[in-house]
């Protein structure tokens, strides 16, 4: 399998490559549109700020590339948020693949922001994750969230329920970091690789 990991100005892409390595998968870390288009599967990782990242993707023409992909794509963290229509983080227009808004956590009872640490998954019916992961813990670090909606494959509760996993057509995404979520995270990456 030819797996591309999209390289852009994001932090800690290295962890994703290490996690894939542990699963025995050699990935192609690349920002080259042709290599991304030709891959069997694509991972769109991300740690960073929405506006700067979208500007970078547009400058490189990667926004169009990502929208045009028909093979399975996995967005991670900021990668998931950027698949949506719009983010409140510096009022950013995103890729518009998943028709949802990304909002800032506004705690009502003293919860900390960012939402940082291990929290549980509540699976939606027929989730692409399979049924074994109900109530399993995964590792989150984020201040913005995707509202629950028709594309939610799992939700998590922090301040209010939000989408921790989504899927629309060939676009899959997780708000948490599967590459940092121990065995549960490895199982999720494996599920995506086996699609």
């Amino acid at each position, binding site marked *: 399998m030819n797996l591309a990991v999209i390289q852009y100005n994001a*932090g*800690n892409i*290295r*962890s994703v490559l*290490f*996690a894939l*390595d*542990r699963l025995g998968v050699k990935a192609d870390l690349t920002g080259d549109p042709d290599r991304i288009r030709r891959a069997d599967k694509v991972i769109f990782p991300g*740690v*960073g*700020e929405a506006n700067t990242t979208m500007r970078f993707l547009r400058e490189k023409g990667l926004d169009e590339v990502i929208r045009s992909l028909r093979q399975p794509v996995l967005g991670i963290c900021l990668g998931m948020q950027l698949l949506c229509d719009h983010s409140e983080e510096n009022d950013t227009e995103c890729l518009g693949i998943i028709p949802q808004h990304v909002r800032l956590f506004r*705690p009502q009872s*003293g919860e*900390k*922001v*960012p*939402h*940082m*640490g*291990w*929290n*549980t998954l509540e699976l939606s019916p027929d989730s692409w994750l399979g049924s074994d992961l109900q109530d399993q*813990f995964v*590792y989150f*670090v984020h201040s913005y969230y995707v509202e629950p909606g028709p594309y939610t494959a799992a939700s998590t*509760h*922090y301040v209010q329920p939000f989408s921790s996993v989504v899927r629309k057509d060939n676009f899959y995404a997780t708000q948490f*970091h599967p*590459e*940092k*979520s*121990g*065995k549960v*995270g*490895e199982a999720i990456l494996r599920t995506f690789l086996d699609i």
Partner: protein
Amino acid sequence: MLAKRIIPCLDIKEGRTVKGINFVDLRDAGDPVELGAMYSEQGADELVFLDITATHEKRKTLAALAHEIAANLSIPFTIGGGISSLGDVEALLHAGADKISVNSAAVRRPALIEELAGNFGSQFVVLAVDAKHINGEWFVYLNGGRIATEIRLLDWVKEAENLGAGEILFTSMDHDGVKTGFANDILAAVSETVSVPVIASGGAGKMEHFYEVFTRGKADAGLAASIFHFQEIGIAELKKYLSDKGVPVRI
């Protein structure tokens, strides 16, 4: 529900763990990766590696260590100890570190926090702070507690948060190593002063101490070293105890 985190801390010198590691089942108790993997297996939620090397080669050995850990462990980890420049941090980021912690260098030059957060994101920047209780006030100390300052703890953590620190790792020097419990009152005050997560350090001796720090101390995570290294408390047993007492933990 968001779980309270249990974090073992490992002291590193020249790429090896030092100080009181006492495990019978390990091939090489000095190997940070092997020890980290064992803690991860037992249910540690995160790891902190604190480098106490003081040589010119430090940047290189630390980045090599971060690379080794990131390649082999699938839980988040923080690296800290004498970090004072963007260059140090960039090397660690590229090696695969999830977070770095800064301490004295940030007190001496607070703009460092702003530069780190601006370049790498707040989620990458942990502010470590050591403090002592003197005449009814908590003051910040530098260089592992050797140098006093007149900076008030609560003022400093608030400023650090405003500059972009994504998490606070607070060590009470009055409680560190004494094993009589965490500094719960000031921890609760730190937690109420900032809106970012707080890691409590210093004072863990019994399982009850973790229960207290997560309830009365309002901490988001509890960090300890020797009680885990000497197997006085097992991580799995600690988490079971906390869970039975109604504290949300990842089991």
